[in-house]
């Protein structure tokens, strides 16, 4: 058996079914008598519903809020200062607050039929003034998204530590406005839910595309007044989550309501791409006004931040808009060592879909803001940006380090990552080429960015936000099968992270059972122990830790039975590679499984009655998070005539502690970085002044494709976290954090001789050319050259 434990390059077990198109998604499911559901969504961004006219003769297939008797509305609490609860009805009631908000649900034999019915519903909506701009909406009290609020500020965090004292001595002051546009997350599979009442089990069976089946069970039970024993959530294969599916969705509540009302009949809803781009435009939109204070070498002394988050219309259950607000405030200082910080972060309600935490959560935004400012400081003091970064990073000798916002950075060598990335991108080579100029007139630029990423943060962090659900211990259930294989059950969910493989590697590390004989089961509340699910780069740290603990708990039991089978003393045997080895002989785990399950007369009389299965819970010794970190560098060529940006090289040096499977980590990095490139250059959910979304298909909402994502070179450092099992750190999100910062810094490097600087995502040709036009920069390209 090849080496398969922690660190092994094991091929992903789940790939065979995915690559052969044999995955099983909600969309693949077809039950007898299944009905399809469609939603009629608000055509206006803000309005009062005057009348909903159901088509004659089709009333039985049309449902509005009033019809959903027994369904509660969603309202997510938080104890953050000034936090305001927004009540979200599963179908809009009284008012509509964004284009795409579901108003009416229709049911048909096919989706087309359900849409036909939806089309015949008459909506009479009185237009209300629309709030689309977070900056101006902050001060707006007359027009309000939620009338019961005094204003539109959904939550506000003020932070101050050492600011005045540190800022006072600054020789250099740099001010920047930095903006990120709104985005959709665009998983390959959108929302999808299928529900029916199972009379035999007396349970509502719900198949739904979610990252957090156990949370959805709590939510559905609450919203529909069911006992949790009456609800079983199965999340089968899920085509990507990215945070979009870590909350309870109104469509889930609606479809489950139908299944309860019409017991025995299955109902299904599949989100289509247009619905996703319109009603799911819910992330990334942050606006920063930053003032940085530094000494004359660029050493950062203090930072003043005024942050507005465009929170959209609703604060979603259970994680709330507080998550983004808290993370933006707390994580802005990044991997840097400075002691003066003042921040005011307001999350503003607007007439857009409710904000959700997207891969990287607020960190893509704060990294973008912080890294652009570091480069601005470097330009101001006339130094290489990477050197200024070097001077400001938290030194490894200071680890563990509590930063200015009291984030506890557990371990790492931030300087080493930056030094390496600088070496690998070969800055001197590009500086030389920049001097020479390109034959085609394009401008070359090199950019750097560094970040650290709080991963697997647990109880203390979430409890501080005062949420109704706080992650704590994650559990794993492990069970040796009668033939010596292993079943591993976990409450987190695998939707692209490779966990069916990597979690098996963890079990293999402890028990030595061949990965092929380990089945990782997840995504079913009926089969798995409770977990808050997969988000916040937590699954390997949490569920992986629990699996290790559970497997370790089986070892003494195996030794005990094994020793008895060999008729030797327990203290004379040891566990090794799936065998109990004694002084003269050994027995395999299969021999032991046979004894327990099939040939019990061979067992010792005092055998452990826990048998060959156990459940163990785990959380890290310190639950404030294991901090992964990375430095990225990129080279771009900017065409100032047409406004294009080509990525010529891209290097990542990252440290997520102990690697469980380097190939899986590479995959996560690349996927995340591709999304980061999307944020940087392509993706934008823009709105007109009436709150109408202007990107409702892929013709207008651009995603990077294979030819837009360069062949990235990745190097791994491995500084084990002192607090987690095996020293692993979370890394699922990291790739998506740095690319916007790196690419903008590279473009700004290319343009620095022209006095042009860009600081709003995405970097579209129009934005680039507009900046050049404003600066009076003529294009350099001639036909003759």
């Amino acid at each position, binding site marked *: 058996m090849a080496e398969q434990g922690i660190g092994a390059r094991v091929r992903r077990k789940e790939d065979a079914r995915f690559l052969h198109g044999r995955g099983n998604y909600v969309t693949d499911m077809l039950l007898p008598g299944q009905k399809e559901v469609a939603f009629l969504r608000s055509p206006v961004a803000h309005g009062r519903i005057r009348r909903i006219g159901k088509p004659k003769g089709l009333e039985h297939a049309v449902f509005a809020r009033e019809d959903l008797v027994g369904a509660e509305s969603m309202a997510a609490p938080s104890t953050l200062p000034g936090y305001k609860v927004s009540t979200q009805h599963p179908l809009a009631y009284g008012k509509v607050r964004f284009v795409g908000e579901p108003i009416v649900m229709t049911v048909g034999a096919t989706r087309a039929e359900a849409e036909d019915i939806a089309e015949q519903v008459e909506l009479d909506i009185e237009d209300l003034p629309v709030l689309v701009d977070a900056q101006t909406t902050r001060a707006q009290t007359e027009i309000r998204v939620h009338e019961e609020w005094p204003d539109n500020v959904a939550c506000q965090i003020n932070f101050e530590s050492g600011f005045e004292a540190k800022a006072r001595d600054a020789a250099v002051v740099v001010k920047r406005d930095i903006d990120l546009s709104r985005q959709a997350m665009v998983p390959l599979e959108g929302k999808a839910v299928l529900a029916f009442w199972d009379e035999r089990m007396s349970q509502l069976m719900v198949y739904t595309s979610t990252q957090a089946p156990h949370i959805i069970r709590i939510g559905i039970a609450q919203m529909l007044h069911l006992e949790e024993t009456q609800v079983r959530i199965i999340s089968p294969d899920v085509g990507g989550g990215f945070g979009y599916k870590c909350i309870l969705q109104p469509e889930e509540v609606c479809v489950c309501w139908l299944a309860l009302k019409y017991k025995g009949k299955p109902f299904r809803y599949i989100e289509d791409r247009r619905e996703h781009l319109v009603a799911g435009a819910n992330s990334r939109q942050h606006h920063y006004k930053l003032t940085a204070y530094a000494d004359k070498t660029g050493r950062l002394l203090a930072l003043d931040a005024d942050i507005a988050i465009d929170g959209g219309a609703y604060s979603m259950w259970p994680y709330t808009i507080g998550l983004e607000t808290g993370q933006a405030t707390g994580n802005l200082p990044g991997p840097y060592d400075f002691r003066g910080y003042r921040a005011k972060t307001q999350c503003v309600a607007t007439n857009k879909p409710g904000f959700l935490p997207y891969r990287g959560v607020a960190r893509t935004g704060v990294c973008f803001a912080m890294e652009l400012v570091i480069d601005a400081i470097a330009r101001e003091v006339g130094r290489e940006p990477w050197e200024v970064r070097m001077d400001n990073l938290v030194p490894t000798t200071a680890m563990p380090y509590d930063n200015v916002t009291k984030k506890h950075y557990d371990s790492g060598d931030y300087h080493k990552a930056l030094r390496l990335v600088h070496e690998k991108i070969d800055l001197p080579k590009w500086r030389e080429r920049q001097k020479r100029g390109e034959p085609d007139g394009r401008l070359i630029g090199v950019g750097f960015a560094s970040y650290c990423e709080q991963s697997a943060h647990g109880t203390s962090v979430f409890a501080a936000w005062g949420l109704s659900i706080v992650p704590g211990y994650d559990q794993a259930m492990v069970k040796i099968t009668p033939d010596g294989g292993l079943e591993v059950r976990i409450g987190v969910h695998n939707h692209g992270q490779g966990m069916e493989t990597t979690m098996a590697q963890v079990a293999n590390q402890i028990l030595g059972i061949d990965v092929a004989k380990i089945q990782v089961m997840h995504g079913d509340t009926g089969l798995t122990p409770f977990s808050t699910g997969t988000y916040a780069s937590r699954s390997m740290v949490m569920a992986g830790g629990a699996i290790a603990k559970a497997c370790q708990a089986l070892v003494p039991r195996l030794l005990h039975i094994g020793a008895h089978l060999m008729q030797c003393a327990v203290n004379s045997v040891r566990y090794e590679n799936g065998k109990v080895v004694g002084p003269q002989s050994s027995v395999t785990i299969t021999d032991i499984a046979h004894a327990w399950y099939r040939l019990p007369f061979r067992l010792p009389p005092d055998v452990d009655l826990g048998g060959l299965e156990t459940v163990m819970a785990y959380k890290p010794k310190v639950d404030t998070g294991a901090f992964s970190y990375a430095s990225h560098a990129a080279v771009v060529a900017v065409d100032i005539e047409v406004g294009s940006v080509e990525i010529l090289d891209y290097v990542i040096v990252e440290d997520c502690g102990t690697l469980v499977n380097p190939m899986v980590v590479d995959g996560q990095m690349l996927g995340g970085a591709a999304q980061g490139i999307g944020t940087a250059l392509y993706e934008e959910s823009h709105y007109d002044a009436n709150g109408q979304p202007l990107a409702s298909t892929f013709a207008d909402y651009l995603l990077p494709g294979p030819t837009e994502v360069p062949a990235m070179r990745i190097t791994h450092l491995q500084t084990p976290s002192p607090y987690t099992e095996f020293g692993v750190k979370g890394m699922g999100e990291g790739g998506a954090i740095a690319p916007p910062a790196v690419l903008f810094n590279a473009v700004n490097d290319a343009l620095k001789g022209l006095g042009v600087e860009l600081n709003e995502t995405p970097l579209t*040709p129009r934005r680039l050319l507009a900046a050049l036009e404003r600066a009076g920069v003529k294009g350099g390209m001639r036909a003759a050259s």
Partner: protein
Amino acid sequence: MKAAAFDYMRARDVAEACAALAQGNGKAKLLAGGQSLGPMLNLRLARPKLLIDVSRIQALAGIEDKADAWHIGAGVTHSRLEDAAGKLGGGAMLAHVAGGIAYRAVRNRGTIGGSLAHADPAADWPLALAALDAAVVIRGRAGSRRVAADRFMKSAFTTELAADEIVEAIIVPKLSAGARWGYHKFCRKTGEFPEASAACVLDPERRLARIYVGALTGAPQPLAGLARAAAERGLAACTREAIHEAVAAAAPQLDAIDRRMHAGVVARALQKTFQS
């Protein structure tokens, strides 16, 4: 979104398709590769009562060598032209343009006739065929007529076609051995419709000098003066200023940013022309 209900028929020949179109009274639509019509059906932007599938009509599927021109059936897919690279003497630009449309999955179904009839201002064929001085063969119940490719598109998504007419073929004159051409488009990503596009064909033997700029609000526009200057004085005539002025004159509605983008693309097309 799912399409609203419609009836479907597969036409056996062009005459049957024309007859069905006429009978449909404006409520029938031809279906070729479905690469433009499909999304419009699904978004319920197009709601025909009847779809007349012309994709199996043999008479629309030919690529014929007619001595001084290539006759391309309207139903020829982009990928068939792409795959004919090296075999289209005097028509190499056709294969080049076809290979740059969208990506292979779209090219496998999308047709040259469908593209012309759809008349997207940013599409490749309206631009390329205008520069190549091609003609569009149109057939209706009343018979057949020819329209120059640069007259075929009247404005965005509007063409010369009457309600009962169908594009039958495109006649592309062969370029002579000494001809040069350059085709350039700026797409934000591979497979995306361009932000700006330009085609240049200089064939002294045939006294053809054409530059067209595309991806405007309407049909591609000629840069006749610039083309003449390029033909007479070569690349030296194509200064940044000359290009900008030509683009501004041809497309006065463009703002400074769009003008810059289009001028940049024209410059690239010219570079390619003189490198060819």
